[in-house]
């Protein structure tokens, strides 16, 4: 596979790992690197790169899994919609098992709710066209990589006058989450592994004020094993050689400094930046995307009325602290006893990128 296989070379991987391990040899203490991207969590575990690196380097998984940071409130709303007689819920596969206050979309499907898993938001538009008598509601979750796609889909719906298509926007923005983490006194992060494809959209600039204010080395990194290793080498270089913290771009073949202007302008056209509730981080200002008034006819929140159950949170579930890197999964009383991939209590166990799920599958410690 061109531009994929070349980034999986074993010899080069070991060479870079050796360089990293040499750099940290004399370093006092541990180095905590946090990634804020579910696909990074998955790639790191799947490639097994941490088994090549010194124990001094600690890998923290932050709130980068859109499924995990989506609060119960959103899931409960989606579930309530699915119970209406004239709706079809279209969603990415990631969301189907996430538990809300008392149910999940998977369970609603079993009870007769019409829930369809789609690969692309465009498929939900096709479903709307095929089922004019139904209200098709697409669950818009995901960060800056996915939101432009949903914006484009809403514009297509407007152009083609598809009036039974709606989006329940749960889109969120990564830089505010990074800031919130750094503001927290409980978390110690020495470097950020910045999300490669979010950065392909937003570019390097949104990270500059964060690095300037908090002095955190931040490197934009791709997803293949060699990308991860090269990016970690760049971070370790900054940290161990006491360099001025800066934003660097390891993923230059995809990420341009200015980002994808076309995608950003679509975002700007369709969405307003508003405050948003994150599981684990609470309410963050200017961290979410709400559909603009001009496109309110596609906004499920404004167009579809139904009774939503009162949101309940499990008092023992510590997903919030886990996904901020404050606690490890095995510090949760429920982890691997009550809360397992077959019976997930919190979203961190559901998503294959959720920290708890990744730990359960790959580490089991």
């Amino acid at each position: 596979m061109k531009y994929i296989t070349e980034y999986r070379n074993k010899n080069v991987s070991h060479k870079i790992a050796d360089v990293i391990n040499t750099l940290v040899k004399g370093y006092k203490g541990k180095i905590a690197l946090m990634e804020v991207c579910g696909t990074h969590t998955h790639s790191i575990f799947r490639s097994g790169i941490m088994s090549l690196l010194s124990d001094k380097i600690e890998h923290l998984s932050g709130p980068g899994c859109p499924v995990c940071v989506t609060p119960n409130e959103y899931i409960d709303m989606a579930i309530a919609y699915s119970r209406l007689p004239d709706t079809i819920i279209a969603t990415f596969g990631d969301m189907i098992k996430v538990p809300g206050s008392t149910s999940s979309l998977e369970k609603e499907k079993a009870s007769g709710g019409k829930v369809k898993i789609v690969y692309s938001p465009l498929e939900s538009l096709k479903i709307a066209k095929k089922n004019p008598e139904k209200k098709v509601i697409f669950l818009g979750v995901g960060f800056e990589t996915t939101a432009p796609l949903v914006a484009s889909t809403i514009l297509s719906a407007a152009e083609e006058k598809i009036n039974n298509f709606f989006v329940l926007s749960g889109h969120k923005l990564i830089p505010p989450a990074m800031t919130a983490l750094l503001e927290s006194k409980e978390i110690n992060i020495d470097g950020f592994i910045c999300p490669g494809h979010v950065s392909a959209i937003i570019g390097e600039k949104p990270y500059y004020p964060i690095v300037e204010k908090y002095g955190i080395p931040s490197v934009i990194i791709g997803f293949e094993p060699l990308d991860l290793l090269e990016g970690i080498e760049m971070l370790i270089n900054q940290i161990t050689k006491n360099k001025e913290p800066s934003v660097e771009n390891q993923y230059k073949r995809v990420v341009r400094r200015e980002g994808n202007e076309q995608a950003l302008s679509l975002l700007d056209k369709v969405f307003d930046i508003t405050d948003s509730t994150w599981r684990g981080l609470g309410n963050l200002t200017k961290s979410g995307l709400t559909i603009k008034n001009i496109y309110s006819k596609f906004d499920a929140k404004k167009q579809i009325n139904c009774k939503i159950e009162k949101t309940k949170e499990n008092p023992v579930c510590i997903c919030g602290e886990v996904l901020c890197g404050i606690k490890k999964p095995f510090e949760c009383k429920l982890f691997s006893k009550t809360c397992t991939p077959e019976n997930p209590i919190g979203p961190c166990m559901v998503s294959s990128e959720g920290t708890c799920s990744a730990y359960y599958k790959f580490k089991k410690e």
Partner: protein
Amino acid sequence: MKKKQREEDKILLSHGSGGKAMSSLIKKMVVEKFNNYILNELNDSALLPASKDKKICFTTDSYVVQPIFFPGGDIGTLAVNGTINDLAVMGAKPLYLSCSFIIEEGLEMNILDRITNSIKTASKKANVEIVTGDTKVVEKGNADKIFINTAGVGVMQKDFLLSKKKIQVGDKIIINGEIGAHGLAVMSKRENFKTDIKSDCAPLWSLIEQMLSVGGVKFMRDPTRGGVATVLCEIAANADFGIQLHETDLPIHDNVLSFSEILGLDPLYVANEGKVIAVVDKDIASVMLKQMKKDPLGKEASIIGEITKKNTGRVILETVIGGTRIIDRLTGNQLPRIC
């Protein structure tokens, strides 16, 4: 959300996906209730004592695949090969099949014609006879076009018993060819991708017969739903050995690997319908490979791992870059993801 460990109160799709949810369901609803020494082995086929020197192998499976026609096969080919392969991996020569249909009202006659033609072709190719069956029609909406159940009977050819208990440290793990084709062929139709991936659905007895003639085979399984990973986890579960798998030795075609990358699926967990995993004595492994490669279904046979002393009860994968990760059983269904 007040939750304690509680049972599911409804059947979910994940209960049928070959992973942990299904195992739990089977344990509770089948094993604990029907409980007998033959059933409790939970083999792919049941070994029935027929006479002093001969054992009959008996198995059954139901086929509910959607879509019913997919690249490389259909529900009919699956219904034959899936069941006879469950006999073959026990070391039994498949002889007879029953075939029962549950048909949804309104199914076009020509579709049933196509499917039964496939069953005829597949059974002739595999030298098995369909000797009995049943047909039911249910009201529209009560079945998804057609469901098929086949039960199969075979005879053990020699008095050897393939058993997990025979597996020893040092044994090699062999697969007869590339993984992931069936599941992704079906997926390609569902997800509207154009690919040249075809299901690997095929009858394995003639290949397995060759393998048994070489000798040294300790245990075999066909990695259907849940894929190679799930079968290996089942072998390692509660064992006094571990399994080491090598990612670079897994035979996988580029198109299958690419498609799984695009959808975010792991080929180790994707269903296969023409593959057998065999645990064999290390001293005959290379001879076994040579013999397998003579058969059309064994051309890409490969040693993919070995039985180890360490990591007992676990399956460990050495990744392409030489790192390690633990392979666990599939939990529910593997779903395409964006994240």
